[in-house]
Structure formats: C-alpha cells, structure tokens
C-alpha cells in the first residue's frame, strides 16, 4: 500500500481521536473528582447523539451548532443525576456504585431502543462528503470540524478549571476531600457541578460524533469501555492525558483497521490498555500517587 494511504488514515484517526478525547475528558473529570466510576458514560453519550439526530431530522439544525444546547441539556441531566441518585453512593464500596451505574446504563440503552428502534440513524449534513486536499492528503471536512470543535471545548474546560474560582474549588475537592470540607466548600454541590460538567463534555462529544458515525442504541456500552481505555491510558485526573489518550487510541484504531481488519481494531486499543496498566499504571501523563 502506498505511504499516503497510511497517512490519510492516520490523520483521520487522529481527528476522530480528538473527539474521543473530549468524551474521555468528561469521564476523567467525573472519575478524578467525584471518584465514582461512571459506567453509564457511553450511554450518556448516546442520549446526546440521539438529541443531535432528532434536532437535525426535525429542524435541520447542524449538530456542530446544536452541540452547545445539547451540552447544556446533558449538564442538567448530569447535575440532577449526581445530586439525586449518585450522591448517597459516594461512600459506598466500588461494586455498589458499579451496579448503580450499570442499572442506569441498562435503563438508558433500552429506553432509547423503545423510542428509536434498533435501526441506525445518520445525520446527512451538506458537508458530509466534502473534503480538504493538502498535497497527497485528503481529509474529511466533517472530521476536521468535529475535531476543531472538540479542541475548542477542551480549551474552554482547561480555562474553566485553571482560572475560575469554581474550577479551583473543584480541583480542591479532588485533591483533598476533607480539606475541602474544612475550608467550607459545599462539596455536594461541587460534585453535582462536576458531574454536570463531565456530562456536558460527553454531550458535546456525542453531538460531534454524529458527523462521524451512525447512531444506534447499542453504541453506549462500547463507548463506555473506550472512554475507560482512553482515560487510563492517558492518566487518571490528567486532562491533557485524556486528550492524548484519545488521540493515541483513535490513531491505533484507524491504523489497525487498515492493516488488519476493522472489526479487530478495538483489540489493539485493549492491548494498549493492558500494556499501560502493567508498565505505567498511573497512565502516560498521570502523576505517580494519583
């Protein structure tokens, strides 16, 4: 195969990987702060994807613009979920939290199945078949837009955590739970806020993802796993790590799909996860004692 085929596929993989990264960023924020294993992460993303699909089908609204209101809806969903359902569970053992979120995931997948049926749905934007050409490189326009939006969203999130008072307070909760309580932070509210922010990330990522893949109710569980693979590869609690992990996994999947067979691609993502867990359990960009 000529070299530029590899290059094209690799660039496509990196662009998709950035959207993966944004999705994983949501998980990383939740996991890193609230310390709850969000096993319904991919399912939350499929809610966002269906919102985008419905808005497009009914009003012809572009998912790239709709990602803002969709992220807002998911924020409210996440906030309500944390304060209503998950909060009593934060002191419970891991398997108990796991079961709670698995039950939630089962409900989400099947409600989507009842409403939308099992068939795949797509968003056919005007630019769905456009592409940019740069020398030997041909890049899908949709992927470029989605990746740019993902980077923009991630940058906003970085700024929020770095420069705002609320962002600082959330980081304080993550660093030292008792300390945060002692200095008078309303930890429960900050947790709900964090869960909302994580949900908003995955909401925005879901809206972008509709430009790249077809939507079915069954996508949820595989994206949940993918998000975990990315977060752990990149480093738990490290926001650049989540993006880097997403990029790496996107690239791996794309190249594995080309060199071997597309159906085997996630095997390589899992192989990377196993290697990372074994040789650098804190993740590529994670700190030692996370």
């Amino acid at each position, binding site marked *: 195969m000529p070299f530029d085929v590899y290059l094209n596929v690799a660039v496509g993989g990196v662009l998709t990987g950035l959207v993966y990264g944004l999705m994983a960023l949501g998980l990383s924020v939740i996991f890193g702060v609230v310390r709850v*294993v969000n096993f319904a992460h991919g399912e939350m993303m499929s809610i966002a994807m269906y919102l985008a699909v419905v808005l497009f089908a009914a009003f012809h609204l572009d998912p790239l613009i709709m990602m803002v209101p969709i992220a807002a809806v998911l924020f409210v969903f996440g906030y309500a979920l944390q304060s209503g*359902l998950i909060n*009593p569970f934060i002191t*419970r053992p*891991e*398997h*108990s939290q*796991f*079961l*709670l979120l*698995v*039950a*939630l*995931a*089962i*409900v989400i*997948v*099947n*409600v989507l*199945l*009842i409403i939308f049926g*099992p068939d795949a749905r797509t968003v056919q934007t005007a630019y769905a078949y456009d592409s940019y050409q740069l020398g030997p490189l041909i890049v899908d326009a949709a992927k470029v837009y989605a990746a740019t939006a993902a980077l923009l969203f991630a940058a906003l999130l970085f700024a929020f955590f770095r420069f705002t008072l609320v962002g600082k307070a959330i980081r304080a909760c993550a660093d030292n739970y008792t300390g945060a309580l002692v200095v008078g932070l309303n930890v429960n509210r900050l947790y709900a806020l964090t869960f909302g922010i994580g949900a908003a990330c995955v909401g925005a990522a879901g809206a972008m993802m509709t430009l790249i893949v077809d939507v079915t*109710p069954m996508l949820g*569980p595989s994206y949940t*796993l993918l998000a*975990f*693979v990315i977060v*752990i590869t990149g480093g738990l609690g490290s926001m650049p790590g989540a993006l880097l992990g997403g990029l790496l996994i996107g690239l791996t999947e794309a190249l594995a799909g080309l060199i071997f*067979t597309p*159906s*085997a691609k*996630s*095997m390589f993502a*899992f*192989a990377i*996860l*196993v290697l990372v*867990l*074994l*040789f650098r*359990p804190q993740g590529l960009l994670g700190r030692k004692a996370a």
Partner: protein
Amino acid sequence: MAALIERLTDDGSRRTMIWAAVLVAALVIAPWVVNDYLVTVLIVILYLAYTGQAWNIMMGFAGQLSLGHAIYVGLGAYIAAFLFTRFGVGPWVGFLAAMPVAAACGAIIGFLAFRFGVTGVYFAILTIAFAEFARIGFDHLDIVNAAAGLFLPVAQYSHNDLWRLRGDPTMFYYVILAATVVVFILCRVLIRSRIGYFWLAIREDEEAARAAGVDTFRCKLYAVMISAAITSFAGVFYAFFYNNLFPEQVFNISQSIQIILGPIIGGVGTLFGPILGAFVLTGLAESLNSALTALGLDLPGAEQVFYGVCLLFVVAALPEGIWPWLARRLGIAERAG
C-alpha cells in the same frame, strides 16, 4: 466423612442447615412438579447461582473485583466444544482440559495485576480488557469458526447420555443442580479454611494482613485461579446446553455483568447471597416477561428497562444485598459474611 460433615455444620445454626436442606429437597423434586418451561428457567437460575458463587470467591472472600468473568466462561465453553466437535472428546474430559487453561489465564491476569500493584477500579478494568481482548480474538480465530460461531450436533432427546451431556433439559437441570450444591459446599469449606481467613483479612485490610504475615500476593492469586477454574465448568455447561457458541455472546461484557449481578443483589461475601440473587433476578425478569406478554405489549427493551429500574431500587434500598437483611429477619445470622 463424619469429620467433614462435622466441619460443614459446626458453627452454622441448625436453622440454616434446615433451610438449606429444604431448598435442596425442593429443587430435587421440582422437575416432577413444574412444567418444561419452568425447568429451563430453573436451569438459568442455577447457572447464575453457580457462576455467582464462583465470582464471589474472588470478590466476596478476597475482595478482588473482577468484571471480566466472561473470559473463563468463554474459555471453558470453547475448549470443551472444540474438543467435542473436532475429536469427539466428551465434556467431562473437556472440562479437565479447560479447567487448567482457565486457571492459568486467571493466574496470568492475577500475576500481572498483583505484581504491578494494579488494584481496585484499575484491576476491574484490566479484567474487562482481557475479556474483551479474548472476545475479539476469538471473533477472528478461524480454528473455532471465528464470528460464524461453533455449533454442537443437536442433542438426541430419545435417551439421556450423561457422559456426553446429550439429553433433555431435565438431565441438564440435575447436572447444574449438583454442580451448584458441590460449589456451595466447596465455598463453605474454603471460607472456613486457613486460606479463607487469609482472604477475609486481605479483603478487610490488605496492608494489615501483609503486616500480620499473610502472603497476600499468593493468596490473591489462588483466589483468582480457584474462581476461574470453577467458572470454566459453567462454560462447558453453557456450550452443551445451548449447543451453539458465538464469541459475541459468551465473551461479552453483558455475560460478566450477568454473573456478578446475582451475588451483589443477594449479598456479596455471603454463601446464600449468590443463590438468592439468582432466584430474585431471574424471577423478576421472567415474571416481567410474562406480565408484558399477558398485557399484549410487544416492546423490545421494556423488560430490560423495568429490570434496570428494579435493580436501581434494590441497590439503593439494600446496600448489603438481600440475604443479610433476610437472614436478620429470619434470625439466622451468617458469620462469614
């Protein structure tokens, strides 16, 4: 033998023993009383009770959360089915081949994880990763027909062949009932043994256990290996009962989740929890199913939604699971829990 019985019944209150005996007796005569459909439901229940009990050794006793038990089911199923279809080797011999492979697989996962200090959520995700790796790997393994699936010649219903596990559902029912009873007794023996106390110590506080001189690495490794070996028989049973195998099904993460729901609902770390949980969950799912059919509702997914909502309710209301709560109600406290 007398010593063994002595040991099995030592501290357990007489009432617990009577309850267990009544349950077993009821299950033994069940096929004469209930119809074929209910026998199949009971097989599913006992299958989940069996696998739940095996998982419980790792999580409930030694405190290691595995979310990838499907890998041991899948290995057991594929090895036995492959030997049967290719070489005509019977399932019991197949099990003897599958058991060490599953245990070795558990040992590899455990060795890697425990050596490198992978614990808690990370360990759980490592187990998922291995199971998913196996699923996709078997999906591309041509020697077992890859994604097209492996099929066993369909059972002859004219006579029951216990040695080759070909026969009617009642035979399979008694096989899985016997297996469940055996693994229950085994778990009871294990939890009263030296290593059982080591496991409980590790579960409660690993640092303290190590400080007290427990070889935690070795004990955790044994827990994974024993759990894996026991689970592999469930795979053999699965293969011969359903007669078809797809990597997409046996190795699927939903298989792993199915396995752990019972013990968590019933009560992690208890001996009766996995059995009770399997009854409650399957009973719930089946009665929902028939209720929906009776109402004439044909909504694919509605059953699962209800199931999920019930799960949410049970986890929120009974954090320790149903059995500890029920045991207190019946006045039979279980000590090992």
